[in-house]
């Protein structure tokens, strides 16, 4: 079969017959053959495929050519849709495959008729805006066949009605639900079960694998091939799901739902309603015991604060009482039974996330505006994942443009416990030396120096002027982002788009709409943004993206590494920063004709010995330290429109 795959990609092959102007790319064929072989022999394969290799087709073709079921998992919902609606049909048609394909999203993307009706009946607890949104949802609900909320474009991504018309693991009644037969989620899962190729995302995949969501666990066992695209994200996402969490949000949601039941179906559960209200109040108090500004930190440090410890104590006791009270009513109302079960689970989770005696895990907390989430995260998933990957025997494919650090896969293999996996590296077909320039400007202060701000503003202005907009300015901190964006808004006339003012997609649309605009962003834009051609000719990065030292999970991993005599900086922090930087740099050159400049305002790339690891891991761009060279190069890149 691996040989057969070549026929798909040849000059007169199957793809050439459906894509006009198709040219075979040798690295893509190599990857397809590698994947096909791994699928056939049920092997694990890790592939770094540089930008422009065409890795999507290179794994889709073997998936269609294989005889068994395949699951393809990618990073986000958007990428899932792109893969399913754009790339997958091309390969399927080219190969004249009759395989059934399905797109499966996470639970919160599907309409829950039961909850919609529950809230639609009384309208209580909803504000005016939510009521209007509810009307929109209800009229759409009449006609939808998929129940995928994504169809409802009229509703904003973050509409406040969404939690009331979709379900969570916590409030889903499962088979006990009166609407079970018409449940869109169940239907979507059923069609995924029937399909030969299923497109999911990493979060969904690992939720299922870790059995954190019920009723879906039967999907993975059947798959003979599991393919991860954007696989560099997998270690972090996987460890999230192999741990436990306890969120105050659950208590608020449960209290609200108990109140709703008390009001509609069980008028005599006043005691339960009262205790639930008290629980919600304590959850709010618990949040107030932390500083107002959202933060993350170690659990053991949090409970040094007397009021945090005391509120947590009372919260725990009340949760136990609540479980006891609800137990009395078991069997009377399906929704209430479900809340009871979830409360019991929450009790177990709370015990887990506060148990300081367990080794090999990090206990940490995270506060948002209104909630506190306590986490227990395993420091390593290597052993656990290795077991999963060993049995049953099947093929696992991991691919991404950014898996290698310093020319090797050790970092990824260590994290995933995949030491015996085959690896493969495919260079990008781009001519980076011609197409791109990397500039680390001279004589900048050290990154933490206060004077950096002035330099960043000055450099940004020069670049924006030379490039006539068309820049991404990427920052490692919100503070720097805000300050630089403010100055630019005052001092230059180009439109400055700032992350945080609207959704990611809306910002990107605005960026593309105005060909002279500048986008200032942090984290979210370092990855998964695909702006081709002239609209993006310059990416500025303020400093090497070492993870924030306040990340408690990272801290725990570092401590653990040191305890075992390892060099945490070399083994953990550098690889992480390398992958992030590669992602950020990857925004610049997206196809053969793209040109551009990457400016990294961090002299450590030149002055520190570890600069070598970063340079070796970045695409082979022409290098300069002279900002004027970068400016002149940008000036030659005339806008086409």
């Amino acid at each position, binding site marked *: 079969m691996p040989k057969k795959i070549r026929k798909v990609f040849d000059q007169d092959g199957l793809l050439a017959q459906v894509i006009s102007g198709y040219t075979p790319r040798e690295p893509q064929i190599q990857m397809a053959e590698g994947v096909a072989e791994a699928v056939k022999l049920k092997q694990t394969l890790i592939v770094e495929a540089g930008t422009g290799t065409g890795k999507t087709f290179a794994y889709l073709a073997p998936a269609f050519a294989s005889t068994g079921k395949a699951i393809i998992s990618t990073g986000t919902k958007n990428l899932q849709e792109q893969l399913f609606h754009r790339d997958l049909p091309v390969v399927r048609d080219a190969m004249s495959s009759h395989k059934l394909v399905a797109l499966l999203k996470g639970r919160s993307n599907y309409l829950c008729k039961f909850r919609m009706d529950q809230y639609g009946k009384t309208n209580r607890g909803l504000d005016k805006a939510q009521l209007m949104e509810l009307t929109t949802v209800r009229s759409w609900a009449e006609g939808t066949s998929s129940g995928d909320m994504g169809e409802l474009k009229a509703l904003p991504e973050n509409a406040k009605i969404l939690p009331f018309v979709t379900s969570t693991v916590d409030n889903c009644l499962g088979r006990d639900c009166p609407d079970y037969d018409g449940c869109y989620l169940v239907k979507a899962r059923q069609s995924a079960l029937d399909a030969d190729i299923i497109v999911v995302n990493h979060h969904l995949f690992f939720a299922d694998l870790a059995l954190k969501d019920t009723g879906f666990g039967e999907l993975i066992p059947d798959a003979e091939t599991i393919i991860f695209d954007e696989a560099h994200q997998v270690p972090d996402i996987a460890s999230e799901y192999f741990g436990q969490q306890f969120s105050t949000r659950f208590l608020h949601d449960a209290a609200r739902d108990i109140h709703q039941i008390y009001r509609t179906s069980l008028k005599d559960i006043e005691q339960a309603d009262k205790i639930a209200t008290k629980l919600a109040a304590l959850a709010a108090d618990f949040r107030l015991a932390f500083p107002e500004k959202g933060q993350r930190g170690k659990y053991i440090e949090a409970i040094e604060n007397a009021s945090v410890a005391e509120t947590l104590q009372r919260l725990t006791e009340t949760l136990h009482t609540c479980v006891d009270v609800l137990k009395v009513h078991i069997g009377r109302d399906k929704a209430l039974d479900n809340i009871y079960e979830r409360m019991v689970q929450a009790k177990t989770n709370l015990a887990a996330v506060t148990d300081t005696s367990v080794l090999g895990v990090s206990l940490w907390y995270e506060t948002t505006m209104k909630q506190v989430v306590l986490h227990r995260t395993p420091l390593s998933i290597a052993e656990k994942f290795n077991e999963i990957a060993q049995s049953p025997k099947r093929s696992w494919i991991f691919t991404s443009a950014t898996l290698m650090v310093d020319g090797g896969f050790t970092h990824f293999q260590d994290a995933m416990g995949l030491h015996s996996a085959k690896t493969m590296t495919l260079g990008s077909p781009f001519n980076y030396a011609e197409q791109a320039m990397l500039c680390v400007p*001279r004589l900048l202060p050290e990154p933490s120096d206060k004077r950096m701000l002035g330099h960043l503003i000055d450099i940004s202005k020069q670049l924006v002027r030379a490039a006539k907009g068309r820049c991404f300015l990427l920052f490692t901190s919100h503070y720097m982002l805000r300050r630089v964006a403010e100055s630019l808004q005052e001092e230059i006339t180009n439109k400055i788009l700032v992350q945080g003012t609207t959704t990611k997609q809306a910002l990107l649309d605005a960026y593309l709409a105005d060909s002279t605009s500048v986008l200032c962003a942090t984290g979210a834009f370092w990855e998964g943004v695909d702006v081709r051609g002239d609209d993006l000719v310059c990416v500025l990065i303020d400093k090497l993206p070492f993870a924030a030292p306040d990340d408690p999970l990272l801290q725990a991993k570092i401590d653990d590494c040191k305890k075992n005599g390892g060099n945490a900086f070399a083994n953990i922090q550098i690889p992480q920063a390398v992958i992030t930087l590669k992602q950020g740099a990857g925004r610049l050159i997206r196809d053969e004709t793209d040109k551009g400049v990457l400016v990294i305002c961090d002299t450590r790339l030149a*002055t520190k010995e570890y600069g070598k690891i970063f340079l070796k891991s970045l695409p082979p761009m022409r*290098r300069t*330290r002279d900002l004027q060279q970068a400016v002149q190069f940008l000036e030659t890149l005339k806008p086409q429109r």
Partner: protein
Amino acid sequence: MTQVIFYQLDNAATPAAIPAELAFACDVVAKCYRTNQKLTVLCADKASAEAFDELLWQLPADSFIAHNLAGEGPVGGAPVEITWGNESALRATVVNVAMQDIPNPNRYKMIFDFVPTDETAKQMARERYKTFKIAGCSMQFQKAAEFN
């Protein structure tokens, strides 16, 4: 005793845009860097310091040399520091790309210097050679082509 090595440059295979002493000094610096020998590269002026910085920065990633210009970099400097116009802040090992006199050469452990092909510059190199010798340094002379 201070060791001074003069290298006789030849114009053989250096790209026209890069002065021969800079190109050759790059090899000398690379050798010291591989043996963890911290050093200062003394340049004639800012422009030539920046040209040398650019040379090091453009080396293939596998031959990376961590370096800084005077005025940037971590406290204590990178393994290789490039400086100009300030002969008092030198490290024990000096690469004299500036091809100028170094006051009190006895303070240093090792000085690398160069004899260019240009006649005037060659004459100046002879003068420096004498000055170092009078100061009591141990002198060596080598052809650049024989450097390894």
